[in-house]
Each structure stands twice: as structure tokens, then as C-alpha cells.
């Protein structure tokens, strides 16, 4: 038998190596993307009109899609979370709803794409931002509900009791005590869902359309940054003078923009988390 102390050393070295390998593979992806894409990032490419080869339409499309999606899931998700954490009786229906939400979270995004085509696109009659936003709303709803529910459950019971003891009704307590206290957690959910809209491609392939024009109405077609990346990477160059290599560089440039957005979102989630645990909750717990 190997001496335990030696086994300890070996295992420790091994675990270190594996972890560094994983972290460096991730850093590699980022560095590789940046090295191959930074050249494309100029004012004309990022903020130029899409007709002339810029990213204005995808940027506006992404923002439009985020806003519209949040418009649907914020009330619906928070409402569901409040119902589940504050109001729902302990019965089969509640259990089933919770189970359904967990199942929804596990469904692959391409399935939402199919659903969006079969329902929203058919219902509206054509592909457009609205159809894409509704599809993304279905996809991100479980994340919204889960974050909000966790935040609501985390509000100390004693605060609720204090409010009831002063004669407040359930809704008054929920509205004036519970929701304000849970707001940071709810905001985290909002950012998380916006992140999904930015990152997902599969559900939007056949729902959001692919217009190169800046979107105005929710019934217009649009593209998102991730979709733009997909087409840049997979389509053959159509206009003269642009090589496939140029398109790849541009795709990598879009990937850099996506990274920046994701990093900013992660940072704001962390920042909210920190503020949240420092200020309010020290008193409560």
C-alpha cells in the first residue's frame, strides 16, 4: 500500500493540475477569440448600419428582444414566485407547478425553437421580434421564477410576523415588507434572464426573422448578436471583396462583444449579491 501521506501529495498535485487545465482551457477560449477578433472591432463595424456591414441592427435587435422578453416574464415570473412562496397551499397542484417549472428549466433550447415556430410564428403569421420574445419568455420564465422564489423565501420569517402583528394584511406585508427585501434577488433573476436572451441562438433561429434593418415595431423582423455570429460563421461570403476569413474575424469580434456583455452581467450579479448580504441581511439573520 502507498503511504497515506504520499497518496495525499499525489492526489493534491493531480487535482491542482486538472483544475488548472480546466481554467486554462477556458482562458484559452477567451484569449483565442480576442486574438482573432479584435481587429474587426472598429466604430464602423460595431455601430455602423447593418446594410453597410455594421452591427447596429443586431445590437438594437438584442436590446429590443431583452426588453420585450422582460416585459413578459417580469410580472409573470415574479407573480408566480410570490404565489408559490407566499400564497400557495401545500397541495398537489402547487407541487406539480413547482415540478413543471423545474422540468421547463431542463428542456433543451432547440425545443423552445420548435415550439416558437409551431405556436407563436403560426399565431402571429410571420417571424418577428414579438415571436422571438415570446419564445425567449417561455425559455427564461423558470429562471425568473426560481431566482425570485429563492429571494422571497430568504426573507426572514420574523419580518413577516412583525408586520402581521401590527395588523397588516397578507398583501400589505408582501408588498411593503417581503418584496422590497427580496428585490436584489429578483434583480439578479432579471439579469440572468437578460443573459439568456443574449446568449441563446437555437430558439431564435426560426422565430425572430433576419432583417438587416433597425427594428422599430415588435412585428418587425430582427437579428441578435448571437444570431449574427452564427450566420457570419456559417454562411459563405455573399458580397464581393469580402473573404471567408473576414467573416470569421467579424464573428470573433461579435464573440468578444458577447463576452463583454456576459462579464458585465456576472459582475453586476456579484455586486448585487455583495451589497445584499452586507447591508440588509446582517440585521435580519
Amino acid at each position, binding site marked *: 500500500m502507498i503511504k497515506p501521506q504520499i497518496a495525499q501529495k499525489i492526489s493534491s498535485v493531480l*487535482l491542482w493540475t486538472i483544475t488548472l487545465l480546466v481554467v486554462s482551457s477556458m482562458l484559452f477560449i477567451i484569449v483565442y477569440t480576442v486574438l482573432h477578433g479584435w481587429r474587426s472591432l472598429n466604430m464602423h463595424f460595431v455601430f455602423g448600419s447593418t446594410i453597410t456591414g455594421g452591427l447596429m441592427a443586431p445590437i438594437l435587435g438584442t436590446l429590443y428582444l431583452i426588453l420585450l422578453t422582460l416585459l413578459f416574464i417580469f*410580472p409573470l415570473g415574479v407573480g408566480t414566485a410570490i404565489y408559490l412562496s407566499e400564497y400557495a397551499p401545500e397541495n398537489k397542484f402547487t407541487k406539480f407547478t413547482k415540478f413543471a417549472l423545474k422540468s421547463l428549466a431542463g428542456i433543451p433550447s432547440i425545443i423552445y425553437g420548435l415550439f416558437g415556430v*409551431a405556436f407563436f410564428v403560426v399565431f402571429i403569421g410571420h417571424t418577428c421580434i414579438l415571436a422571438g420574445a415570446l419564445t425567449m419568455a417561455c425559455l427564461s420564465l423558470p429562471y425568473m421564477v426560481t431566482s425570485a422564489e429563492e429571494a422571497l423565501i430568504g426573507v426572514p420569517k420574523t419580518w413577516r410576523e412583525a408586520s402581521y402583528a401590527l395588523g397588516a394584511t397578507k398583501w400589505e406585508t408582501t408588498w411593503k415588507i417581503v418584496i422590497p427585501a427580496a428585490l436584489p434577488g429578483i434583480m439578479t433573476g432579471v439579469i440572468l434572464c437578460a443573459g439568456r436572451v443574449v446568449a441563446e441562438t437555437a430558439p431564435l433561429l426560426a422565430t425572430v426573422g433576419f432583417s438587416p434593418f433597425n427594428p422599430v415595431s415588435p412585428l418587425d423582423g430582427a437579428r441578435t448578436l448571437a444570431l449574427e455570429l452564427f450566420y457570419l460563421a456559417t454562411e459563405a461570403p455573399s458580397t464581393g471583396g469580402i473573404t471567408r476569413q473576414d467573416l470569421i474575424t467579424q464573428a470573433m469580434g461579435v464573440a468578444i462583444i458577447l463576452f463583454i456583455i456576459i462579464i458585465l452581467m456576472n459582475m453586476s450579479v456579484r455586486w448585487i449579491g455583495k451589497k445584499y448580504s452586507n447591508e440588509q441581511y446582517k440585521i435580519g439573520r
Partner: protein
Amino acid sequence: MSKKNIEITVRCLLFLCSIISLMILVGIGYFLFKNGFSAFIENGLGNFIFGKTWNISKNVYGVYPLILGSLFVTTGSIIVSAPIGISVAIFMTDIATSDIKKIIGPCIELMAGIPSIVFGLVGMIFLVPLIRENFSPPGYSLIAAIIVLIVMTMPTIITLSEDSLRSVPRQYKEASYALGATKWQTVWNVTLPAAKSGIIGAVILGMGRAIGEAMAVYMVIGNAFKIPNSLFDPSRTLTSNIVGQIEEAALNSQHMHALFACGIILLIFVFLFNGISFKMRKVV
């Protein structure tokens, strides 16, 4: 409005919210089956599942190679990412100091946040030529998809295994240390066995992620409709099949039905994996 009426109104509204949330799942199931079920009838269930032809002009659809493709990439990636992911989780819970955790934690979080399309892009531009030049053309292959999925399933496996390792009561570890066990002996004999079911659950959830991943796989697997003979052959999965054709298939055509049927089969696998995972992790 009196306080009582407000209370009742609010309760109804909130209940309505949760009903709508529930309806989405029902709706997805309904539309998937409404469109996909016809494909089972049009082709015959057996012919559809075990058929090896996918011919759009003749309207003959069989998905056997797709099912195999999906299962190959899933098992292939999980065989590698499970041991690596669990190792990192052990590192994070039992070896890393809090300073190191502060660096690696956000890295893994970021890794989870990278859009799948970016994994696909780097796979396509970096990995595919690498395989083509050093191993075997065309580079777009099963192995490329497997490697991309290894990286993509890693954060899921790490985070969930870490949760489950962390939830092992501290008393167990203390008992083991107090008896003169080394860190590794404690991990191997106490922590891992106590966290076993949670870790298995994490790995199976990783499989659910892998089989459901569409874009990244589509970009590197080559999408050849055939049963691959080697890891370096191009192949096609249920998901990449849908990605490739969802835009061109006409609504209500047999072609579209066949794509939805792919979705049904995919969903069955995903629910199977997730169901087991939920059970193991005691989520439900």
C-alpha cells in the same frame, strides 16, 4: 376597494400567473406532440425510429443514425467531463484556499455563461482544422463535437458536484480527521461516499445538457446523415438535425413533422436524464 377585496383580487391574479406558467409546459407538450406525432404515423413508429434514410424529396424519414449520434456525443463527452468535473469540485471544496476559490469560482461561472454559439465558433475555427491536419479529414467530426461538449458540460458538473460535496456534514470530516486520516483519505472514504448520489445526479444532469446542446454541436459535427464508423467521421445528432432544417421546412409538411418528432425523442431522453438526476439530488 376594501382591504378584503384587494386581498382576494391579488390572490386570484397571482394564482393566474402560476396557471399561465404551468400552461407553457402543457403548451410545449401539446404542440410538440401535435406536430411530431404525425411523423410516427406517416412513417410508422418502427420505421421512423429504426429507419436509416432521411430523404426530404421522397418524404421518407428515419432517425436511427441521429439517435445513435446523440448518444455517442453524450456518452463520449461525459466519460471525460465527469471525472474531470468531479476532480475540480473536490479541489474547490477540500483543497483550494479561499483566495484561490475567489479566482477560480468566477472563472467557472464565466465558463457557464459563455454562449454555446461561441463554443461552436472556437470549435469550428480552432478544433476542426486541428483534427483535420493532425488526425483525419474532414475535421468536422464526432470527436470535435465530443470535445466541445466536454468543455460545455464542465460547469454544470462542477457546480452541482460542489454543492453536493459541500452539503456533507462537517462532523463527518472532523470525525475522520480526528482519527488521523489525511485529507485525501477523508475525501475518498467519507466525503465522496456521502455525496455520491448528488454527484451522480450532477453527472446525469450534465448528460441532459450534452444531449440537448444544439448550436455548438451543429457547427462542428459535420452533419453527415450516417452512422459514424470512427470518432473522426462526421455525424449528425437529433439537435443538429433540427438546427440545420428548422428554417427551411414548410409548416405542416411531413418534413416539419419529422423535425418535431426528433424533438419528441430528444425530450424523452432529456426528461429521462433529468428525472433520474432530480431523484438522485433529491430536488423533487
